[in-house]
């Protein structure tokens, strides 16, 4: 579970976030929407602990996994090898079987598992990164612009995977510009503008066009 209460953060005299409160419960997916400079990435960095808030409190329960926009893994190693190596760093030794099971769980095609990562698509690398998070029994997933550069089918597959994770009990926060992705994936949308939370609502079946309208209004 992620909980932000009255968070403010400024870089020098420039306020980046003002009095932000958010909550993502287990089993739910929250989409953080906003233009460039609205404070999305700062929010993620605060939750990850890379930055400290000027005021307010952040509570995160459960292992946190961060999936950056461009997943950087070792291109010289296969997906399976990457998974096992990174899991080992976190203190978890996976057997080949366990590794393959995890990769299967994130829907990485079996034939790709022992191929070098250099030949993977962006979506496939994302899956390996999620598998790495799963290996650590992550309960909280932070995804930064996960759909940038993915084709619609890959976005759809990602949405399915995230939904699956949420159903297994994860709390998921993702930042995005992709309204279609939000419409098929998120439970809730929060709109940031100039560091303030300007709107927050349940998606509940609204399509991308409706979300766009809501977004333009909120700004």
């Amino acid at each position: 579970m992620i909980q932000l209460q009255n968070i403010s953060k400024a870089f020098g005299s420039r306020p980046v976030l003002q009095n932000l409160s958010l909550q993502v419960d287990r089993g739910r997916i929250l989409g953080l929407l906003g233009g460039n400079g609205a404070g999305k990435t700062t929010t993620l960095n605060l939750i990850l602990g890379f930055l400290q808030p000027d005021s307010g409190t952040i509570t995160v329960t459960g292992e946190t996994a961060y999936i950056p926009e461009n997943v950087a893994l070792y291109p010289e190693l296969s997906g399976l090898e990457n998974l096992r190596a990174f899991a080992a760093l976190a203190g978890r030794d996976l057997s080949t079987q366990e590794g393959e099971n995890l990769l299967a769980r994130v829907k990485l095609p079996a034939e790709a598992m022992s191929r070098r990562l250099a030949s993977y698509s962006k979506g496939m690398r994302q899956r390996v990164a999620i598998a790495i998070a799963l290996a650590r029994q992550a309960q909280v997933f932070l995804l930064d612009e996960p759909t940038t550069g993915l084709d619609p089918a890959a976005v759809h597959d990602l949405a399915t995977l995230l939904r699956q994770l949420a159903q297994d009990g994860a709390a998921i926060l993702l930042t995005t510009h992709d309204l279609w992705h939000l419409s098929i994936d998120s439970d809730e949308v929060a709109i940031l503008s100039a560091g303030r939370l300007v709107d927050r609502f349940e998606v509940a079946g609204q399509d991308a066009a409706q979300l766009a309208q809501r977004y333009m209004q909120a700004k």
Partner: protein
Amino acid sequence: MPVPSPILPLARLEARLIWRRRASWLLLGLFTGLMLLAGLLSGLRQTREREQQAAYQKLVRQQWESQPDRHPHRAAHYGTFAFKPRSLLAAYEPGIEAFAGRIQFLEAHRQNGANFAEASTLSSASRLGELSPAFLVECVLALVIVVLGHGVFAAEVESGRERLLRAQIGPRGGLWAGKTLGLWLGISPFVLIAALVPLTLLFFGESGLADRASVLVAALLLYSVLWVLLVAAVSSVCRTSQAALAVLICLWLGGGVLLPRAAAGLASAAHPLPDKSEFNARLGEEIAKLGDSHNDKDPAFIAFKEETLRKHGVSRVEDLPFNYKGQLMMAGEEQSAKVFAQEHAKIEAVLDQQTALVRRLAWLSPSLALRDLAMRLCGTDAAAQQRFIREAEAYRFSFIQHLNHLQRDHTAYAEKNVQRIDEHLFDEIEDFKPTPHTLSLALAGSAASWAVLGLWIALAALLGRRFA
């Protein structure tokens, strides 16, 4: 549940990444090939030259013993040779031997004679270096570590993996230790290949090498650790792996290629040695003052003559119980050897100043420090050379004095230097017996070079830990 340290998994990961690159295998193949070639050629050459030297040594001894009956002073000018003891380890690091010579011709009244250095017979392009296994270690091994390791931290930051790595490791830390250890493990096959050359030499039947060879391997290990730590430190400070590579190459070039040459040039410019003509002219002048000990009527030796006569209570040299000419030769040799030692001490002082300057500059260059250690252990360094020259001169002196003694006791004054003595009397003069090179001799005075390696290791480790 306690989480195991990430150091070993990190190390394993790093080593694995190194061997996933095709370049690593290519480099290992090249390095092994070069090492084999250098070891083989250098070993072949040393073995042949050792055999040659042994044969000459035998021949010279045989010639000495098969001399006919001769006047002792004739034998003193016939002279003999001192051969520098050669260890097979010289195949690893030939050091300064090509420039210093390994043989010394010894005869009466002449010190520091022909030394048969081979350097003057080489082509000028050869001054670019000789491919010894030690050279490969000092230069190429370091460059291999640079090429394979420059990205160890910088590439992680550049690619963004660093965040994920840190996230996986969490607050336990160990990124620096793990990756650095991994880099060393990754390049360890190169170190192994490098260490094999001195170790292989042990199997060629020369005894007493094992301790020096193992210290040599230890120095080599330290050197590899040094470069691994240095590469890791630079890689952690630089933001991109390209910048890290550039900085490391500058360090490598500066310390390995430029500094040694510049040090040599500066040392000889700062402390110029007198040239040989000047040295000999001064020596000639000093020796001339002593008088000619071949000539028993030389006025310079009148006091000596009177002293000798007085001591034996006679008034004519003909009445002495021995040949006065032999006695005079001994006195003359002693005086000229003393003058030579005095003059040569001045030269040695300049040589020492030059060496000291190079030593001071070696603080800037680990490869110079390693070279110093390797040369010492292989017995091809300046100290071993000076020891050889000193011992050869001491031997020359006792050799000549022995002959003068024979002249004194076995020839008659009246015989005008044409009397021959029994050849068997020559046989009792023993060959030159140089002190064998030992580990303790090799290590004497090497503290500074170990300290250079230690200091660089400490600095690189501190820097790396701080920034990684």
